[in-house]
């Protein structure tokens, strides 16, 4: 019985460690509005007679605005949830999320959502994917979108998780998303699945994953790790 209780205690400590180590990863509202905006544009492209040129410009504007939003949302998270500076030493949980600072290059202190790497990926997205999709050019949007999906989703499938159901569910969602992405990509390339349908599926999953991350952050912060301790 004591061993069971100790295991429970260990689990609660692991969740606290997970929350701290993934504090930046779980800030889902940094990206969710962007996925939402692109999803709306994709839906408009599929369901209405909007000019593709306008939609392409709108996508580029949303992409540019996302740079500003990354900064603003970062400040908002700091003011609402606090600040956690990532460790200089490897943490024992063995995280391998590429969003996690443990994976950052040695001389890139801001590796993560505000990193140059991420900004470059966004530029690639803006300059190649968006015009290609909305103007109807042959820009191989599927390949690039898969790359971005892998960058966003795959890391969530590998890092160690705790026994908490909500944390496990995050991994389940991520794995489901990867499988779905691969399946729909194959359907898009081989079975002439509609581009807008495929994009809508991809963006919906990215949006849901990021919204879940934000919910999970709040959920873990609402957990009582000290049991109302007073001394």
């Amino acid at each position, binding site marked *: 019985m*004591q*061993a069971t*209780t*100790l295991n*429970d*205690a*260990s689990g*609660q*400590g*692991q*969740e*606290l*460690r997970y*929350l*701290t*180590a993934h*504090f930046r990863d779980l800030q889902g509202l940094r990206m969710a509005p962007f996925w939402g905006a692109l999803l709306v544009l994709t839906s408009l492209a599929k369901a209405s007679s909007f000019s593709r040129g306008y939609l392409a410009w709108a996508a580029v504007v949303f992409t540019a605005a996302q740079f500003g939003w990354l900064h603003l949302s970062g*400040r908002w998270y*700091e003011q609402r*949830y*606090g*600040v*956690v*500076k*990532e*460790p*200089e030493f490897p*943490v024992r*949980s063995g995280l391998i999320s590429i969003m996690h600072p443990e994976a950052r290059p040695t001389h890139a202190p801001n590796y993560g959502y505000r990193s140059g790497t991420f900004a470059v990926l966004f530029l690639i997205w803006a300059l190649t994917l968006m015009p290609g999709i909305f103007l109807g050019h042959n820009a191989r949007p599927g390949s690039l979108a898969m790359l971005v999906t892998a960058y966003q989703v795959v890391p969530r499938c590998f890092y160690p998780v705790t026994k*908490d159901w*909500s944390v496990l569910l995050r991994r389940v969602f991520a794995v489901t998303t990867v499988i779905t992405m691969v399946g729909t990509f194959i359907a898009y390339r081989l079975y002439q699945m509609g581009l807008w349908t495929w994009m809508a599926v991809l963006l919906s999953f990215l949006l849901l994953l990021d919204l879940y991350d934000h919910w999970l952050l709040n*959920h873990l*912060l*609402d*957990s*009582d*790790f*000290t*049991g*109302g*301790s*007073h*001394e």
Partner: protein
Amino acid sequence: MITGYSTTFSIVISPGEVMNNNDDDFQMPEIDRVVHEPARLAILTVLSTCEEADFLFLERATKLSRGNLSVQLTRLEDADVIEIEKRIEHKRTLTTAKLTDHGRRTLNAYWESMHALWRVAEDSLTTTAGSSKRARPPRRCVPVEGLLAASV
């Protein structure tokens, strides 16, 4: 969702059964009271996972009141387990806490003690299960307060 739970329980250890483990000189691990308190242990668990964290995050993560958190941080600072720094950032005061080298060693030593205690408890349970029909010597209770906030 983690719900409420007791923060105090006892590990019941039979000295005679511990002796069965060929350890006549066995001594119960000494528990660091500064680290052992649940609120302080939660704070240290957070700080051991990051370089530093600010007051707001510690308040939200540990669910302690501002007053209680402030008291616990002061006690940890007095014990040289953490460092507290105040600075102005974005036109507001940012109070951050970080684990000192001494604090990290203290925390590691604390977990080694707890693991030792855990092993003793497990050995005791195993031995008890194997000799349930034999007469038992008097038991000794070792209170382990707040262990439920622990992390490994």
